[in-house]
């Protein structure tokens, strides 16, 4: 394959780099496990039997392909053609299941017995608990104490699914600290346990592997857009926490002319406000103070309340291929209600960020086709919104 034919989103370098981002900054204890995982993923991903097994699960269990839905009312109101990729309709209610089915199937193939995971909004935790239940593995989920509080519904769902949920009380008591605790667990349990990381972050091979497991979002969406509209969208918009739903959908369009927009919360703008740093196994943009202490993110949405971002996003930002604007909590609350009232769809607070950006910027996109990744449904956020809206 010649270089010019190669997608901008292809394999990272041998050291797990996307440009100068990524890598494998983990304690020595975890190096062999990361190497083993990389080899196992590489082998499985090239194995038609594994791919067929995963495809079948995605189809018959998760409900793929997820459809696309045009928002006629909202589109007319904003003066754009607004198309949603409906990851909210997947089993368990978000895109997270794509990655989790891939990883848990792989973990089983590797002979692992236990799954450990971190979660922010609880969607990845629920997906992990679900896949573990399905494939007969035990599952432990670490969740920041603040998130346990604001995403109570998902905590109960995880328990119903047989997972153990441990509240994390250190640091900011949100996603960042849940990742720390999951990594500490993995350092101790690595021989029997697979760490099912929930986004395109962490040490190599996770950012690459998780993106590949979500590639299905972009591949389907591209085909669906071409079939339905005969052309690619002008804009592809997704929210960015660690960045997995965004990379999933971007992967289908990175080599087209579409503008790629990853929307971060104003209080967790790793690309917007961060500098390159190293935490959670990767070199990437990171919100930090003058001594390199990681700063706490603050977002209404537990799933985006994270001071870092997956390394491939840092790369896409650095080469100018994708843009990473921010929206405020107030704009998000508006967008959340707007979608519910005009389209009859209650979005997750995370992807309400994408809509908030779209509705703010719509005057500059008149007549354009905008594809938005509706990464999850908002049922989990209804309790929190009841309190906010009173």
């Amino acid at each position, binding site marked *: 394959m010649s270089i010019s034919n190669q997608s901008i989103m292809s394999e990272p370098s041998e050291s797990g780099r996307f440009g100068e981002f990524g890598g494998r900054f983990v304690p020595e*204890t975890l*190096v062999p496990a990361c190497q083993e995982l990389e080899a196992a993923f590489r082998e499985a991903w090239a194995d038609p039997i594994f791919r067929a097994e995963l495809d079948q699960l995605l189809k018959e269990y998760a409900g793929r392909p997820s459809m696309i839905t045009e928002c006629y009312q909202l589109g007319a109101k904003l003066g754009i053609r607004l198309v949603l990729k409906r990851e909210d309709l997947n089993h368990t209610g978000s895109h997270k299941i794509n990655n989790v089915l891939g990883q848990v199937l792989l973990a089983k193939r590797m002979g692992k017995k236990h799954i450990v995971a971190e979660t922010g909004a609880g969607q990845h935790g629920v997906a992990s608990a679900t896949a573990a239940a399905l494939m007969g593995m035990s599952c432990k989920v670490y969740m920041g104490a603040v998130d346990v509080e604001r995403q109570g519904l998902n905590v109960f769902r995880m328990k119903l699914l047989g997972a153990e949920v441990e509240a994390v009380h250190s*640091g900011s008591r949100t996603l960042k*600290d849940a990742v720390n605790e999951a990594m500490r667990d993995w*350092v101790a349990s*690595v021989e029997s346990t697979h760490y099912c990381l929930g986004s395109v972050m962490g040490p190599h091979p996770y950012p690459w592997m998780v993106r590949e497991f979500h590639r299905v979002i972009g591949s389907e969406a591209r085909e669906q857009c071409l079939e339905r509209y005969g052309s690619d969208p002008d804009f592809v918009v997704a929210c960015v926490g660690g960045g997995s739903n965004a990379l999933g959908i971007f992967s289908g369009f990175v080599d087209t002319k579409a503008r790629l927009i990853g929307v971060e919360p104003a209080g967790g703008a790793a690309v917007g406000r961060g500098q*390159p*740093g190293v935490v959670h196994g990767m070199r990437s943009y990171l919100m930090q103070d003058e001594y*390199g202490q990681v700063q706490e993110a603050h977002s209404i949405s537990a799933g985006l309340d994270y001071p870092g971002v997956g390394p491939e996003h840092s790369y896409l930002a650095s080469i100018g291929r994708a843009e990473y604007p921010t929206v405020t909590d107030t704009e998000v609350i508006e967008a959340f209600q707007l979608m519910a009232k005009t389209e009859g769809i209650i979005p997750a607070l995370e992807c309400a960020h994408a809509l908030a950006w779209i509705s703010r910027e719509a005057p500059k996109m008149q007549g354009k086709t905008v594809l938005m990744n509706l990464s999850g449904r908002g049922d989990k956020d209804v309790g929190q919104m009841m309190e906010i809206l009173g």
Partner: protein
Amino acid sequence: MISTSLTPLEVTLRAKRDAGRKLLVPYVTGGLKGWTDAIRAAAANGADVIEIGLPFSDPVMDGPIIQQASQQALDDGATPISILEGVRTLDVDVPLVVMCYYNTVHHAGHERFASQLFQAGIVGAIIPDLPLEESGPWCAAADAVGLATIMLAAPTAPDERLPRVCARARGFVYSVGLLGVTGERTELAATASLLAKRLKKVTDIPVIIGVGVSNSAQAVEACKVADGIVQGASVVRRLMEGGPDAVGAYVAEVRAAIDASTV
């Protein structure tokens, strides 16, 4: 196998080891209340090297005690700079090394950080989240000022990896005592002696066991195979509960125990 330019730390430690002494390395969280006096107390009571932790917001290799100590130090305003200033005032006779997470180094810049350490009188660095494959740029900067990069070796490492880790280690090699993070345990893990034995087979550099060596009895047991031990959480807990004097008493107790077992 031995390069002509051993770091000063390694020269000191080899000489002591070759004279039959087991090496005792207490760890103290920099910036924690009483930390400078705790270092003086450890130095006065038989430490061979003292490891000073630079507190980090996200210490993934540390268990509850050192996490808590790091958080307290940060809450009290500790920074790498304030700790290095404190180090300059110590006036102890024992080699000092730092333990810090890689973002502290990365953020300062490799060369700048190496020279800051060197100028404060630090002779080595332990960076627990910087594995062999990622260590090149830092090691080059540290080598340039004669600062020893103490590599960690883990129980999960396959045989072929250990000689490569040892070849890159300066000062001593840190033999990780168990699968897990820092913290006190009721028993020394079986992996501790096993890994130290594997390392002794492939290297002549001092092999020191750290993580999970929690009291003087465990120190004695670990020293049957290893050239020495790091004592972390057990020291820090004493500093938080009983102040610098408790650290001095504890270091003296461990010193006496390992000395008694080597005569």
